[in-house]
Every structure is written in structure tokens, then in C-alpha cells.
């Protein structure tokens, strides 16, 4: 800043000063920095000391703007420049706020101060008071030109502050939206699998939104693991993410194979213009110890089998959701007990200054260097730390799962051609198994309900029906038949012979359900 005495500046010098000051004020999208830029621009060029006070409302991140005029009920000092009389006053005299509130946008010369002069500039945008600035001068008073210039700077600052506020609020809104749509915690107590997940929003520039993960517990102990990334950032991406996530949950609940889930998701995304996302879907079956994985243009998962090096799983990457015409594939991967699978978004491994492959190699290496048997939550934190996730611009979603399987002797499976003797056979098999499993208290209910379901199945099935029992934290019984019609929960008339099976199941089971699958349907219950 050229330091000509204020009174003697030419028009050209004023314009040059205004240009420089405006630039330094408007260069940030951060409220405090705008205020600091404002204070720094006027000291010492126009004042010996400057203080900026802003509304508390404005400074609290996610709040919506209050009614007009009530914004500055309380203010707080956010910036100061120059030195007189020690440090600035954190809480300004009540009179100042009153003066700022009643006036228009123009400067108000303050009467007091023991020596020199003071002037207050309200910071207003479209009539709304955001706060105010006060300038002090040790000697002499402020010239009219100086007040005009100051008023101009105050208007400029207020606009920048309002922008910064809106930006901060949008980022906060996106963050709230994003977090609300991500399940806080994975479903707990899932047999045969343990899960930890992390979401980190992007840098303070608030590049939030669009990354997601999901964990869904499915029939028969299977667990769906999903990580996805919607193209772009901000509120639109967060909203798209929410939509895709809901669609995917619905498709997965239909028990479609992973590639068909992605195929259907793609078809739905195509009908909504501008929806583009990558997605990785892994379906773990703790009974067969297999992961069925399908990929839509996402970075591959890492599998760490005990005693081996962590490796990237080669899943055909297909292409992103929303492109269309991609033939997604499902790859079955054997995951021995104790395996760790890690799925993440590119925010964790991608950097501008290097290839993606190097980032993935770094991820594999970081996993390999972790002590075996380390707590899964600690592992996640360790991976985020090792890959410097905190300092990344992009947001990061990370999902890690320890796969431990359900022991084979906790599962039994029989197929039987539908016949008049099937219910009786099913009762005998279930009874024998529950005796072996030492569950005498469950025998009566389980045999009754399985027998009812097999009776129903025999009535409509044309191909062999199957009965499966699984013992984990609960006793799960499934009856599968090839008839696609779902049973209806209905109160049978007193004279009716059949139709009570599902009613009994609904009364006696802890949980129950019916799933239509490609080969018919499965009716299941838990005791």
C-alpha cells in the first residue's frame, strides 16, 4: 500500500487502494478470513486500529438464517488490526450494537473516545445486519472521502461474508445430508463376519458428498457389502448417493446376484439424467466362505488371506453406473476363515501426482504391515493414517470386514422330492439335528413350524424342496420350493383345513420372512 497521507491522495490513488483492498477481502470463502482481510486492509492506510464484530448466528455453522433484523442479537469480535489501548474489546459496548441495528448502511461517527476519532460501519447485505466494524484514529477526525471509501469496503466485506456464510452453510448441509444417509453403524452381531467402516469428508474446502458404504444383513447369514462413489461433489452428489443407495438396498433385498443388482441399478440410473457413480458390491456367504463380487467401474477390493500377501482382487471393472450397455460380471472368490477384505473409495488411494496403481499398492502394503489379529477398528484408523487420508482433498469411504465363517457343523441342508411323506421326514431330520445340537427346548416349535412350511411347499412345488437349518446366535430354518407365489398371512376360516402354517410361523418365530428368488421362494424363520 502506498503510504501517501490520506488527505492528499489523488482519485487514482484511491482507486488503486480500493482495488487492492477489495481483492484481499474477497479472496477467501472463510468468514473469519474475510473479516481479517477487511481489518488488515484499513490499518494503517485509513485507521490506526480496526475491529470487526460478527453475528453469533453467522458463526455457528449449520444454522439457518433467522428472521430479518434479528440476526445480530449478539455479536462477537472476529478480527482486529493495529494497536491502541491494548487488545480489542471482545464484547463491544451495548450502544454500538444498538447504533448499528437502527442505522442504514452508512458509517456512524461515534461520539466518545478520549482522544482521536472512531467510526462504526454496519455490515449489511440486503438490509440484513451481519455485524459491524469500528475504526479508530488516534489523532484528527475522518474525512468525508475516507468515510465513503470505508463504506464501500464495508459493503464489499459484508457481501463476501455473506457468500462465505452461504458456502459454509451449504457444506454443512451436505455434510449433514451425507452423514444422515450413511448408516452410523453396521448391523451388529452378524455371525461369521465383523465389519468396521469410516467416512471422512473432504478438505476444509468442503468437497463433501457422494461417497457411500453400506452393509446389509441378508437371509441365511449372508451379508452384502457395498462401497460407492457418485461423480462430483456437493449437495447434488449427496442426494444422488441417497437415491442410489436406496435403490440398491431394494434390489439387494430381492436377492438378485451381484451382477444383476448392478445391471438393474444401471438401468434405473439411466432413466435419471446425469446420474453417474462407481460401485463395488461384495456378497459374503459365511457358509460357503465365498465372496461373490461385482464391480461397476470402482477401484478393486483388497483381500488379505492369512499367511499370504494382501492382493488386489481382479474383478472385471465393467464401467460406471449411469453409462449403460455394460455387461457386469460376478466373480466368486474363496475367502478362507480369517480373511480380511478392504473396500474403499479413490479418495483414500488417489493423488494427483501419481498413478492410481501406486496408491493401491501402498494400500496393500499398509494392510500387509499391520499385525495379524489387530482389532478391526484400529486397523481402519491405521490405514487412514498410513495413507494420509486426513490431508486429502477428496472424501474417503472405507469398509473393512473380517471374515470368519460359520462352521460346517452348524449348518444342515437336505433336499427332498415333494411327497406325502416329506413333512414327516422333515420333522424326523430336524428333531435328530436339534438333539445333536443339544437344543431340546427348540425341538417342538422348530419341528412344528418346519413341518407346516414343508406341508405348504409340498402342495405347490414341482421340483425338490430343500430344508436348511443354521445355528448361530439364533436358530434359522429355511424351506425353499420352486413355486414363485408368496404365501399370504391370512386368518383362515374356522372350517378351513389349511392356511395356518404362516400364521403359526408369525406367532411363534422371533423373526420370519419370505424371499422370492430366481428358483422360486424361500420361507424362513428364526427361533
Amino acid at each position, binding site marked *: 500500500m502506498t503510504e501517501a497521507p490520506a488527505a492528499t491522495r489523488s482519485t487514482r490513488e484511491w482507486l488503486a487502494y480500493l482495488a487492492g483492498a477489495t481483492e484481499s477481502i474477497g479472496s477467501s470463502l472463510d468468514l473469519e478470513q474475510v473479516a481479517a482481510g477487511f481489518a488488515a486492509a484499513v490499518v494503517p492506510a485509513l485507521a490506526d486500529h480496526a475491529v470487526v464484530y460478527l453475528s453469533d448466528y453467522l458463526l455457528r455453522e449449520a444454522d439457518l438464517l433467522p428472521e430479518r433484523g434479528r440476526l445480530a442479537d449478539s455479536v462477537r469480535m472476529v478480527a482486529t488490526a493495529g494497536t491502541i489501548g491494548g487488545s480489542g474489546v471482545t464484547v463491544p459496548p451495548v450502544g454500538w450494537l444498538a447504533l448499528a441495528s437502527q442505522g442504514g448502511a452508512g458509517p456512524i461517527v461515534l461520539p466518545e473516545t478520549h482522544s482521536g476519532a472512531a467510526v462504526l460501519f454496519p455490515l449489511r447485505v440486503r438490509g440484513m445486519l451481519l455485524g459491524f466494524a469500528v475504526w479508530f484514529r488516534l489523532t484528527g477526525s475522518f474525512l468525508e472521502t475516507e468515510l465513503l471509501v470505508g463504506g464501500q469496503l464495508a459493503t464489499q466485506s459484508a457481501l463476501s461474508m455473506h457468500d462465505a456464510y452461504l458456502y459454509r452453510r451449504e457444506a454443512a448441509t451436505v455434510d449433514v445430508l451425507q452423514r444422515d444417509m450413511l448408516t452410523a453403524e453396521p448391523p451388529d452381531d452378524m455371525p461369521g463376519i465383523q465389519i468396521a467402516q469410516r467416512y471422512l469428508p473432504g478438505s476444509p474446502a468442503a468437497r463433501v458428498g457422494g461417497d457411500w458404504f453400506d452393509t446389509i444383513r441378508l437371509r441365511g447369514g449372508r451379508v452384502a457389502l457395498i462401497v460407492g462413489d457418485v461423480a462430483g461433489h456437493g449437495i447434488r452428489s449427496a442426494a444422488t448417493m441417497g437415491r442410489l443407495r436406496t435403490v440398491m438396498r431394494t434390489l439387494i433385498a430381492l436377492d438378485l446376484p451381484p451382477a444383476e443388482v448392478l445391471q438393474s441399478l444401471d438401468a434405473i440410473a439411466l432413466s435419471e439424467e446425469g446420474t453417474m457413480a462407481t460401485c463395488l458390491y461384495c456378497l459374503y*456367504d459365511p*457358509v*460357503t*466362505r*465365498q465372496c*461373490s463380487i461385482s464391480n461397476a467401474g470402482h477401484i478393486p477390493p483388497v483381500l488379505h488371506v492369512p499367511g499370504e500377501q494382501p492382493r488386489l482382487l481382479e474383478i472385471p471393472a465393467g464401467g460406471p453406473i449411469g453409462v449403460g450397455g455394460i455387461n457386469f460380471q460376478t466373480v*466368486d472368490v*474363496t475367502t478362507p476363515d480369517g480373511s480380511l477384505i478392504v473396500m474403499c473409495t479413490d479418495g483414500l488411494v488417489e493423488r494427483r501426482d501419481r498413478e492410481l496403481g501406486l496408491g493401491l499398492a501402498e494400500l496393500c502394503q499398509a494392510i500387509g504391515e499391520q499385525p495379524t489379529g489387530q482389532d478391526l477398528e484400529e486397523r481402519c484408523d491405521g490405514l487412514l493414517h498410513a495413507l494420509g487420508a486426513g490431508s486429502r482433498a477428496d472424501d474417503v469411504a472405507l469398509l473393512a470386514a473380517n471374515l470368519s465363517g460359520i462352521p*460346517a*457343523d*452348524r*449348518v*444342515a*441342508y*437336505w*433336499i*427332498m*422330492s415333494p*411327497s406325502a*411323506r*416329506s413333512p414327516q*421326514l422333515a420333522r*424326523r*431330520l430336524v428333531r*435328530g439335528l436339534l438333539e445333536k445340537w443339544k437344543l431340546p427346548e427348540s425341538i417342538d416349535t422348530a419341528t412344528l413350524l418346519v413341518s407346516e412350511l414343508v406341508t405348504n411347499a409340498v402342495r405347490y412345488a414341482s*421340483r*425338490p424342496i*430343500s430344508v*436348511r437349518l443354521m445355528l448361530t446366535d439364533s436358530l434359522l430354518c429355511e424351506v425353499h420350493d420352486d413355486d414363485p407365489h408368496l404365501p399370504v398371512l391370512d386368518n383362515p376360516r374356522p372350517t378351513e383345513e389349511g392356511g395356518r402354517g404362516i400364521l403359526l410361523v408369525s406367532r411363534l418365530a422371533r423373526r420370519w420372512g419370505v424371499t422370492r428368488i430366481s428358483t422360486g421362494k424361500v420361507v424362513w424363520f428364526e427361533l
Partner: protein
Amino acid sequence: MGVRSENSFVHRHDQAAAFDSIGERYDQAFPHKEGQVAAGEWLIGQLPRGARVLDAGCGTGVPTMRQLQEAGLSVTGIDISEVMLALARQNVPGVDLRQLDLTEVGPELGPFDAAVAFFSLLMLPRADIPQILSRLHDVLAAGGLLAIGMVEADVDDVPIDFLGMPVRVTGYPRDDLERVVRDAGFEVLQTIDLSYAPVTTQALPEVQLFLYCRRLVSP
């Protein structure tokens, strides 16, 4: 030849073709065969070195033929699948192998001190199983041992998708299987049931039954 189901020839041809296609994927899908290995151990414990054993439906030869041969028993393996026999030849060098169906087992093969049929009766219609068991009975020496591995189910020659191939399978509930085996002239010494989960999504988990039997003099 005894009584055979009508489409038996076509049926056996298709089953052989299916197993030709499955080949070594069979062992990949069923890597752990604890129940089968235990049954082999039982035989080894009962038989003197050099005793003759028939593996009826030997498949890839592992684990059973290898296990029996390493224990010093003299093993003959039969299977209908050429591809399976070729794998067995690699897996268990020097073993006596014949491309024969279970329905073709005759006295000229024997006599044997023991026979095993692990998951091979599974591939036959129920109508054929009693006569196969009779053939095994007749090819065994007096007091000869028989170990059977089966899947517990109540199906007769139903088509299923097995490792991506259409095959037809048969199973009995435990009590029924024991009765069929007894009716063919065997004493059932012990029955073991075992839950089993294959390492693939292309085959179903199952309950396996292992029957340890002894040939009675006459049925």
C-alpha cells in the same frame, strides 16, 4: 446284466459326460473330505497290508485311492468318466484303473477284501442301487468290508445343477439308506453324519452319511 431303468444307457452316458466336463474342478469345490478320509482310515485299520480294495467310482483318485495305496493296500479303481480316470492316473501313479460303470461290476473283477463307494451311488437312480449293492456284495470275499459315502436327501434321480453341469442325483434319508444296504446283504456297523459345505456357490451344502458295513454270507 440285471434289471436296469429304461433310459439307463443314455442316463449313464450323460453322467459320464458331465463328469468329463467337471474334471479337476471337483476337487477344487470339495477340498476337505474329512468324512471320506476317516472312512479310509477305518478300512486301513481293519485290513492287512496287500489286501485288495475296489474303489467304485474313484473319480480323481484323491483322497481315497492315494490314501489306501500309501497304506500298502492293493487298489483297483473304476469310473465312467475318462477325464476323471486320467486325473486319477496322474494323482495316484501305478494304481489299477478301469473305465467301468458301477452297473458293470462283475465277479471277474474280484474277489476284493473291501470296497468303497464314495458319492458314486449318488449318481444312480434308486431303481439301480439295490442291484449295484448286490454286485458289490458278490465281488467281495466273505466278511468283506464296504464303506459308503452318500448325501442325506429324499430324491430319486432328480436333475440338479452341479458345478455348472446338469447331473441327476439320488439320495436317501438315513434310515432308508441303511435298510437298502441291509437288504443287499450287508450288516451296517456304524453310520456317521456330517454337515458339509463345498467351497463354491455352484454346489449345495449337504449332510453326508458314511456307512461302515460288513458283507453277510447271504442277503
